[in-house]
């Protein structure tokens, strides 16, 4: 299941890590998560449905969907898709909800951290926000749930679009490295503190500044931090959308991002033959990356009458012989314990299935690339004003052109503020980071802020920028109206 030969990524064999799954010995590699190591060994069933007892595998692969919860060293509900594999650990499928373990979770006492800016999420937006704030003199704490920083950039093996100044032509994986190096440099200089494998668990009462709880996972006891900050930038990203059809919870049905994570981060084949659902840029790009990893893509089906992604991405796939079928969707997935095939169906002009147009496809993997929803739970808990904006992908925090929400000092950036591209997420991060630094009195560089806003407007100016343009306009307008009504 391991990919050893790849045109873009050098997958070297890493140190072997033995571990136990259901009392049997398995061997993973250093850098694996628990779920990726199990996948590499051919284990795709990680849990059972609470209601129907049917097998389940992970869907999102980035710690958001909860269908990978297992018991690790006796602790239930561990998100195995992001939990690092450690030598000698015991992994078990858990009974339903799991039993509360009889163990201490935290080392004591809790530690207090005082910083100017807390950045939640170290993807393209969060990394740029942290760098921008720190470079302008603010002290920064950057927190991310994953083992390493980079967010979704670390699996983007394709060259980015955009302007030459904004690193167009550079692969996402290389941008991630560059941003990480810049952050590490500032960490050395004491300007940024990076905390990986850590989760911001909530926002709490505080007399003056903002106050968050952060849990950093450690091998034995976890650490609890009481973080006091003047400003917080929430760049929590997004989560992939699920589609309703029979069999959508069978192991082997993944979000496109999960497939990308498995193959491009951990070097593991998600399967041998894939049906891609969705011909937006994500579906087209991930299909091409599957081919690059030596995995067959049977076809791409798209419910809309036209291909949503860039023609250049579609053309790349077509000249490799992959059909793209518009006005087609998935009807059901076939298989008992795992995906064995799927039935697709043609849709009429009202997007309704056409009778007797079904076709059976033999495949072992279904990849859903049907859009994303902003991750806004922490923002909701803080209590910022939110609205449902379809063009932004769901509920988003209302924000102004400095990315500040309805609560002073709470900023948002990237996909969490409305679904868009990594290139725009990076600029939004810079705007939030700089605006926070200006607000704290660390700098007065408003000219730079204007420049970033102009760059953002340029990137959104074309026909493919229409949705975010509408979304951001609505968000700004609603923010004003909300403000006026107070």
């Amino acid at each position, binding site marked *: 299941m391991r990919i050893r030969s790849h*045109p873009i990524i050098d997958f070297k064999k890493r140190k072997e890590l033995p571990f136990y799954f259901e009392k049997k010995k398995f061997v993973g590699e250093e850098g694996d998560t628990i779920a990726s190591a199990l996948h590499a060994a051919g284990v795709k069933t990680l849990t059972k449905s609470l209601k129907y007892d049917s097998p389940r595998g992970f869907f999102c692969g980035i710690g958001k969907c909860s269908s990978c919860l297992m018991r690790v060293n006796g602790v239930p509900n561990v998100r195995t898709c992001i939990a690092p594999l450690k030598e000698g650990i015991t992994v078990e499928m858990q009974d339903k909800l799991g039993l509360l373990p009889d163990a201490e979770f935290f080392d004591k006492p809790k530690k207090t951290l005082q910083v100017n800016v807390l950045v939640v999420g170290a993807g393209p937006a969060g990394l740029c926000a942290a760098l921008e704030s720190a470079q302008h003199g603010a002290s920064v704490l950057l927190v991310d749930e994953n083992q390493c920083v980079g967010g979704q950039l670390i699996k983007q093996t394709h060259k980015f679009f*955009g302007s030459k100044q904004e690193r*167009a*032509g550079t692969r996402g994986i290389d941008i991630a490295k560059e941003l990480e190096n810049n952050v590490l440099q500032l960490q050395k200089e004491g300007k940024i503190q990076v905390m990986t494998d850590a989760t911001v668990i909530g926002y709490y009462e505080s007399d003056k500044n903002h106050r968050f709880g952060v849990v950093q996972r450690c091998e034995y006891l976890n650490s609890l931090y009481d973080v006091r900050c003047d400003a917080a930038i929430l760049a929590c990203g997004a989560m992939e959308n699920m589609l309703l059809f029979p069999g959508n919870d069978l192991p082997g049905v993944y979000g496109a991002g999960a497939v990308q994570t498995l193959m491009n981060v951990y070097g593991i084949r998600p399967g041998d033959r894939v049906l891609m659902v969705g011909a937006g840029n994500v579906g087209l790009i991930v299909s091409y990356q599957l081919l690059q990893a030596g995995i067959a893509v049977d076809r791409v089906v798209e419910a809309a009458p*036209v291909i949503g992604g860039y*023609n*250049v991405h579609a*053309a790349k796939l077509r000249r490799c012989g992959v059909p793209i079928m518009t006005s087609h969707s998935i009807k059901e997935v076939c298989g008992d314990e795992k995906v064995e095939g799927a039935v697709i169906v043609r849709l009429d002009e009202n997007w309704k299935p056409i009778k007797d147009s079904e076709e059976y496809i033999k495949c072992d993997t279904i990849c859903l690339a049907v859009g994303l929803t902003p991750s806004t739970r922490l923002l909701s808990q803080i209590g910022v004003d939110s609205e449902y904006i379809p063009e932004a992908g769901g509920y988003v925090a209302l924000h102004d052109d400095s990315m500040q929400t309805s609560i002073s000092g709470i900023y948002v950036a990237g996909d969490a503020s409305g679904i868009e591209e990594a290139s725009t997420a990076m600029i939004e991060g810079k705007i939030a980071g700089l605006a926070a630094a200006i607000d704290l009195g660390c700098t007065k560089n408003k000219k730079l802020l204007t420049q970033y806003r102009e760059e953002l407007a340029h*990137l959104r100016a074309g026909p493919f920028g229409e949705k975010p343009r509408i979304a951001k306009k609505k968000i700004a307008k609603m923010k004003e109206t909300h403000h006026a009504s107070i």
Partner: protein
Amino acid sequence: MHQYEKTGILCSKDFQIPTEEQLKKGVAILECVQEIPCNPCVASCPVHAISMKDINAPPMNDFEKCIGCTKCVGICPGLAIFVIKKVGKKAWVTLPYEFVPVPKVGDTVQALDRTGSLRGTALVKKVIKQGKTMVITIEIESTFAMDIRNIRV
């Protein structure tokens, strides 16, 4: 609506086509027709043949200025630029390639068109590494010059 929005495949009326004379010299064909925010090809051109009204406008190639140097082929993030040069009854097609294995000069490979259909064989004439993108020049029958856009090793 354009047909390519349904199929993903461009036809000759969708993009700029050079004259026979220009093809003999060797020029870059920009198969990038939508308004997407992207411009690295413009900066990559040493003779300023590629231009763009603004970052969202499709790039235009001045075939008179273009020297067919192939620099833009490995730069384009969309892998959408091909250099075509007609040499007698043969044509040289330079295309971007991001798969393994990478062919060697002198190898015979399969020549595929825009739908991925096999249209014959091609002889590998040049292999240049541009970052992780391989820029590969193949020799094919001249009649297929505007059809062959991929290879299978």
